């Protein structure tokens, strides 16, 4: 595999601004662990700070008109939604692994039941999609739905006693640290507990509907 293929990990505006230069540096490079780590770290940084490479631009019509999207920068709240979306995907992977590799191994965890698995897999997948959608926009609707999904995710984690350690920092970050305005903090203080109730209720509902 050519090292320059890892450029695909960078966001579009970074590739447009610096892609040619980075590709030039990678032109005869052999793929190594240190190079992969460096590029993955650089790509993560680029996704967290897309504004450093200039505005996000999308070609329109014949490619001659360029339209800025989302003001060219990612707000802290949108970044939080993107990170939570990734955590949801990690949660899906955890559930799958816990119910395949670990569950069938001698002395395996055997924690999840069928109803729990179906409900949590479905909810985590939906949450991931909603959170990624929320992170892609900067309207009031994106912020509100993203906040509800964040709270629901916190509730899902709270309801899953195996990893409660994640729920507390997420709730604290979501309520106090990231939104800039007092109104947004107040809204989150209401939305996160509301979402938490939904998150705790849904797996139980799923269990009662699906489990024998």
């Amino acid at each position: 595999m050519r090292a320059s293929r890892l450029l695909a990990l960078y966001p579009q505006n970074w590739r447009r601004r610096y892609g040619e230069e980075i590709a030039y540096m990678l032109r005869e490079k052999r793929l190594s662990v240190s190079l992969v780590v460096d590029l993955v770290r650089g790509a993560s940084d680029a996704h967290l700070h897309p504004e450093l490479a200039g505005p996000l631009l999308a070609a329109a019509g014949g490619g001659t008109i360029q339209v800025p999207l989302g003001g060219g920068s990612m707000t802290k709240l949108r970044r939080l939604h993107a990170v939570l979306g990734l955590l949801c995907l990690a949660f899906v992977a955890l559930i799958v692994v816990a119910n395949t590799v670990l569950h069938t191994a001698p002395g395996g965890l055997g924690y999840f039941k069928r109803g729990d698995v179906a409900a949590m897999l479905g909810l985590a997948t939906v949450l991931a999609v909603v959170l990624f959608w929320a992170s892609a926009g900067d309207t009031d609707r994106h912020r509100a739905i993203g906040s509800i999904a964040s709270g629901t995710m916190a509730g899902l984690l709270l309801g899953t006693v195996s990893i409660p350690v994640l729920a507390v920092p997420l709730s604290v970050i979501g309520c106090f640290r990231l939104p800039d305005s007092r109104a947004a903090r107040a809204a989150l203080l209401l939305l996160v507990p509301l979402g938490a109730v939904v998150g705790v209720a849904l797996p139980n509902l799923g269990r009662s509907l699906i489990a024998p």
Partner: protein
Amino acid sequence: MADMKVSAEALLILVSLAEGPKHGYAIQQDIEGVSGRRLGPGSLYGAIARLVSAGYIESLADEGPRRPYRLTAPGSRALAAELDALKKVTATGKRRLATR
């Protein structure tokens, strides 16, 4: 343009460009020669993007794989301030080591 705290990578890039305009690959080679440290492309362009965003360096051409960068006047001032601070830290460290 904004004041920024200069990272170790950014400082090395500023030092490299103090000699004159260079493109990314030349900056990487120069830094390796001066400090023995090889910056990967991910780290290098992350620091370059921050320095451009802060107005400390600027590109001389619009496009191309060998786009040169040069130090700006605010970049020169920032570099001088960082080097002064480092000089003070170095002198203090040496003095304290000597009294051990």
